[in-house]
């Protein structure tokens, strides 16, 4: 299963952190720092896999991918395949790109909850549920639409009922 998904920039600022097993905030920070320490000391053009047992305990692997100013990091156990997870990161980033049209770090920062929505459509309780970025997009768009609608609805009835009661 997937243990954690992290997005951090090249300065070590966390942009997104999602742990599928509960960890206290301090522990999360420690892990994020640990991961960044490893990532920033890595040379270019080396493999995307890191032995993460010293950070995350036994049976944990880490796969990361570097896009522009962001590191996308997935931590998982032996039930996943490293190369496949690398592609999962690809799917995630492709989806973000579709969603934000040329995604950049700021999009991730400011549309924090939307990134979470996308991730939730891909990974559910630590298991990969969807790997097609168009499917994910469809779901996310539907959610946005409904959310916007429900927002409008909740606003209108209030005023409407207020107006009616008047």
């Amino acid at each position, binding site marked *: 299963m997937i243990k954690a998904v992290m997005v951090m920039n090249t300065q070590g600022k966390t942009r997104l*952190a999602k742990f599928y097993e509960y960890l206290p905030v301090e522990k999360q920070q420690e892990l994020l720092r640990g991961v960044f320490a490893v990532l920033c000391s890595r040379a270019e053009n080396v493999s995307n896999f890191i032995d993460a047992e010293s950070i995350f305990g036994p049976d944990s692997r880490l796969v990361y991918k570097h896009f522009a100013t962001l590191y996308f990091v997935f931590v998982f156990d032996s039930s996943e395949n490293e190369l496949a997870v690398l592609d999962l990161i690809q799917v995630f980033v492709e989806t973000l790109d579709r969603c934000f049209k040329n995604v950049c770090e700021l999009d991730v920062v400011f549309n924090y909850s939307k990134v979470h929505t996308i991730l939730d459509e891909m990974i559910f309780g630590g298991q990969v549920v969807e790997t097609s970025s168009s499917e994910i997009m469809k779901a996310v768009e539907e*959610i946005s639409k409904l959310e916007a609608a429900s927002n409008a609805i*909740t606003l209108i009835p209030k005023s409407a009922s207020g107006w009616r009661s008047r």
Partner: protein
Amino acid sequence: MGSQGGFYQSKEFLDLVKSIGEARSKAEEDRIVLSEIETLKRRISEPDIPKRKMKEYILRLVYIEMLGHDASFGYIHAVKMTHDDSLLVKRTGYLAVTLFLNEDHDLIILIVNTIQKDLKSDNYLVVCAALNAVCKLINEETIPAVLPQVVELLGHPKEAVRKKAIMALHRFYQKSPSSVSHLISNFRKRLCDNDPGVMGATLCPFFDLIAQDVNSYKDLVISFVSILKQVAERRLSKAYDYHQMPAPFIQIKLLKILALLGSGDKQASETMYTVVGDIFRKRDSSSNIGNAVLYECICCVSSIYPNTKLLDSAADAISRFLKSDSHNLKYMGIDALGRLIKISPEIAEQHQLAVIDCLEDPNDTLKRKTFELLYKMTKSTNVEVIVDRMIDYMISINDNHYKTEIASRCVELAEQFAPSNQWFIQTMNKVFEHAGDLVNIKVAHNLMRLIAEGFGEDGDNADSKLRSSAVESYLHILGEPKLPSVFLQVICWVLGEYGTADGMFSASDVTGKLCDVAEACSSNETVKAYAVTALMKIYAFEIAAGRKVDMLPECQSLMEELLASHSTDLQQRAYELQAVIGLDVHAVECIMPPDASCEDIEVDQGFSFLDGYIQEAIEKGAQPYIPESERSGLLNMGKFRNQDHHESSHGLRFEAYELPMPAVQSRIPQALIPSTEMVPVPEPMYPRETDQTPVSPIPSNPSNAGSAELKLRLDEVQQKWGRPTYTPETSTSNSTSQKSVNGASAVNSTREAYASRKPQVEISHEKQKLAASLFGGSSKPEKRPATGHKVSKASSHMVEKSHVPNSSMEVAPEKAAPAQPPPDLLDLGEPTATSTAPSLDPFKQLEGLLDTTQDALAANSATTASRSPDVMALLYADTPIGIHNKDDADLLSGLSNPSVTHMAGATARSRLSQSSSKGSNPKDSLEKDALVRQMGVNPSSQNPNMFKDLLG
């Protein structure tokens, strides 16, 4: 920019993010966040906050917590938001609670009800949000509250909901398997879902379920195989393609499941061969995901019942991985190789160069993976090179976690495969020197025992050589600063025990060093204690030898200091030392017999010296002791106890009363006699019983139990001491170590050791056969050194002495030479050997090895025989074998070049002497050892200059 996502963000939030982004230091960031927390605390508790505003506050809280600050003051507001009717607000609330809370948080109880309601919602997005929260927030106790709804959702019209419901159920299974054990049939039903996505999702729980219990799912093999077949044949809609691969993630999951199901099951495996073969054939190694599927196929092939054709395909795929430029693929290739060599070890030979490349790669991940592979393929033939490499790497890294791991692996390999005891000691020295504080203390004890016991088979002479070489190396090492405490303990012990034994070093030399150790470690009492005891031993041996003891001044001052030490242990040792020095020769000989660390201290298990006293007591009317085994009541009691344990789960109460019961039971039948105190209340009996136990032993009986106990302990010791392999062989050819330990147990433990080693013995017979056939039949000279290795592996533990007849018997009579080429890394010598003398008959080569007068040839062969140049050559020859041959030839021609010949010949000779003497001639190897140490390199690199040049 912010509005692009369609979510409303206020200026304040933008400012916050921006100012945090611009913060120069962590302190500045913290200040900003803290002030933000203050603001939020104030705002969030204001009455009548508009929902939209509230939503933003919560998101800001999430953001703050992601940065590592405490946002717990807002948790309750997040919980409240989940109750909201608006989807947007509700989803934000769920997002926040899943990030904030864990399943055991107090607030969960407030959410369960909402979740229950939302799971029944008409809006599938609400259901999805609730399911998401279920995964994260429901614990074992609350599972029953939501389980019915989740199960119902398995039949939901929306496939997204079905998928998530399956995942939620899977999550329940992970948290508490018993709570959903009755619902597993639902997974099977969903496996036949119309939607491939839902089917794919069920594979996740199936993977877990099958990993737990393979046999219950064997019936599904056919289904999985047919699903995989359909997927691979592109029967799914195009929508499931990813980078032109048909549903690769589903393929990967299926292959993982098949690997589990087919493991060790020939029948199940046979149904898989076709489809796995198809996937191999359809491989798309241009894309990353294609390689992921390919890798999974290799894993599957190496796990299921082996099939030659598939293994070939897998080997082929691995070689593509290893030849690739991508580090990722190399990594996967090394990993896959590690899996496949368990089934077909010979495949590693094809990839030696690639493996060596990976070992030299600057990429740490790849390096470690390669070390893992080497660890898996270590045998007695290549252990020296591999362990040397590991130690070099261990020295070069700072990561303590990995250092510990690699140190323990070195120790394990050295214990298991050590070719000679000198090598073992030197390896241990290195491990201790560089990772001493990280290794287990048991390792140190093992090392001491090895030095004390020796291997036994070469007689006392070899043992004492071993010891003096250890002493010499330790005296040398002591000059280095900052040795780890564990290592110092070993050094002190060995110096005390054997420091002056061979007369090479005078007592004052050794004691001086020991005093230095004690002074340098003034804060470490254990080391000090070791040092003092070592001093005592040395002085005792001096006295026993009839020499006059002159205490060095520094030693005297040390004693004075210790006599007044705060540590009672040190003080006692110091006083003992003082007392021993004052005694005469005979007394000292009794107290401290030289070289007696292996002698059994005879423990009188039966307390026979008390016999008279017991007799007296019995005559006076005391109860005779009845050994536990003969107490008739005991057996029944045991049964009782078992029944109790089975029948009632509250065993605690029974155990509390049990102890005294046997005493009562045993006494009643045996000694019904008089005794007014025979009240069946156990308590008063108990102390009496304990009192009597030591007083009335019947010698024959307890000694049985005693020796059994003793035996057990010894067996354990033998097992722990990682070379039980030696035991069987040595015990047949008079084992001193065994004998000295325990006569009776030796037989027993031998048998046990035989039993435990049996598989290995068989394997090595196979190897021998293989080796012999390769050697005789193969026209490819490449295989020649492999033969040598295989043979020497076969005889690996047959001790060096028996090496010669053994191998010659196995291979060929001409080859009766002890000039076995020393082991190579991964049999790496092979390609080199080919190129060395491609036209040469392998037999001749070996003869050449023998004949030192044929200088050039000897030089060549010796070069091949010595692994270091090989590795060197290989290191530089990262080209495929064909080209590599040329490189190698260059190196060799360089060696036989007249100007170099002399040197090469010399090294060859020295190497020959080394290889011929390996173990069997301890004197030579010791000399070589000393020489090597003088040159400051380890024995595996016989030619330091070459090493330096090539390694840089």
